[in-house]
């Protein structure tokens, strides 16, 4: 699976001037030294302390009162409403991202206009901008003092808008390099045989883009499920209406109900893992086939 940072493909371009770069030999072919062991031990210890122990603590806490209490916590009506809304809004946002992401990537690759490189740079803005600023930004234009008369503050549409903002780059950045390297001969052949541009796109371009679209959608969905900063100001956190799962967990932590917070957190983690790792695995397999 590829991480969110933008344009990794550019970084992967050969930096060296010599053409003899080749993959590293397996360790077995080399003299065993203590260096890798020390570095490896240090890395694993650091990762365990910073990431693994804290996450294990969440899982352990969620089951502290037994399976029954875990089940009670995750079937609490307010928790269920928050998780259901999170799932639905994330699916809607991921679907819009898929369509708009392909469209924007297509315009950035196949179209030519003034300021295109500026627009290309702008795509990464949601990654660079702190999420709380993203929320404030959307409220400034689409909040209750909106100068354009659109008010989405404290609505489900507002939550979707905030998620569309923070997940914008994922599909664009996944699709763009694939579209760039796509051979245009097949499209030209289809056009010369009388296929319309929409037909050619659907039958030739879209199948080639599918793994990239899926990878981008998976990242966008995972991000949407866990997002907090961009939503917290715009949603108003109305239980049963605009409260998403991450905000629900936050409110449980604030009221010191950490076991219930941990239980919902475990469900959240499970959803993003299944999406992220499942879809990236599936996309990798589809790519090989």
């Amino acid at each position, binding site marked *: 699976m590829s991480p969110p940072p933008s344009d990794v493909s550019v970084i992967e371009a050969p930096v060296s001037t010599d053409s003899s770069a080749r993959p590293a030999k397996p360790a077995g072919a080399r003299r065993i030294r203590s260096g890798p062991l020390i570095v490896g031990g240090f890395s694993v210890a650091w990762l365990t302390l910073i990431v693994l122990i804290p996450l294990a603590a969440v899982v352990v806490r969620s089951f502290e009162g037994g399976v029954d209490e875990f089940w009670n916590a995750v079937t609490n009506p307010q928790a269920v409403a928050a998780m259901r809304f999170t799932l639905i809004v994330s699916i809607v946002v991921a679907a819009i991202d898929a369509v708009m992401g392909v469209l924007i990537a297509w315009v950035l690759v196949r179209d030519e206009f003034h300021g295109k490189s500026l627009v290309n740079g702008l795509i990464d803005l949601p990654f660079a901008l702190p999420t709380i600023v993203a929320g404030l930004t959307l409220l400034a234009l689409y909040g209750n003092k909106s100068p354009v008369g659109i008010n989405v503050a404290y609505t489900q549409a507002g939550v979707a808008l905030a998620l569309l903002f923070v997940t914008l780059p994922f599909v664009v950045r996944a699709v763009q390099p694939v579209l760039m390297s796509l051979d245009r001969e097949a499209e030209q052949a289809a056009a010369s045989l009388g296929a319309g541009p929409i037909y050619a796109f659907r039958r030739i371009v879209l199948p080639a883009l599918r793994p990239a679209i899926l990878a981008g959608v998976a990242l966008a969905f995972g991000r949407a499920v*866990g997002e907090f900063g961009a939503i917290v100001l715009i949603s108003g956190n109305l239980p049963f209406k605009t409260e998403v799962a991450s905000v629900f967990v*936050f409110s449980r932590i604030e009221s010191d109900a*950490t076991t219930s917070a941990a239980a919902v957190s475990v469900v959240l983690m499970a959803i993003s893992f299944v999406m992220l790792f499942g879809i990236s695995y599936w996309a990798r397999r589809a790519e090989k086939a």
Partner: protein
Amino acid sequence: MTAGRLSLRVVALGYLGLLLLVPIGMVFYRALENGIGPAWDAVTTPPAQHAFYLTCMIALIAVPLNAIFGIACAWLLARYEFRGKRLLDTIIDLPFAISPVVVGLALILVWGREGWFASTSVIFSVPGMILATIFVSLPFVVREVEPVLREEGIDQEQAAATLGANTFQILRRITLPTIRWGLTYGIILSTARALGEFGAVAIVSGKISGRTETLTLFVEDRFQSLDLAGAYAAALVLALIAVAVLALMTILQRKYKDH
């Protein structure tokens, strides 16, 4: 055909404009509508100054630690085959898949007063905020450095070793110069994330104004206390940092292409 192309362009640019550009422009406008003076006053109050100082301090501790860990991990993943390598690879990406709120909760459960390593000086104070920041920005350096190391191969390092260079010399003279742009890129992404983190830091900090408040927490605090001018002014500072980060990223990418 031209009409179709034009309408696609209009839809794409219109979407980007309405979602990104106009809202950002609105924050700039709101922050500066009464002139630079009030905005400057709002971001130079003692709590604002402290928030700025604390944000920078946390980033200055978290980012170098991430860089060291990132180089070490990237080196292992690119140069060696070992059991559990795929597992390590997957675990490194975990912070990208976990909600910041869950990160905050996890740290409270480990370091809080009833936690596994119960401590009174981590949660609701700066060390906890540093731990949260390290967690959320952990994968960036690894993910940028590893492909560069893999691409470069081991020829130069082996040549240096044959000529009698020790590990430290190889690292300083060969490996670090090779990965410098990937490393820089990873550090920029890591720094941007560290400066902008909100959820995880909000939970472990206790949001004590003037003590454990970073710039992002300060923005929320001002907004909730209905001091919109202060919120917009602080948001403007963060947005300017984000734009600077974007510009740096673009320049670095150009550098890669030129090579």
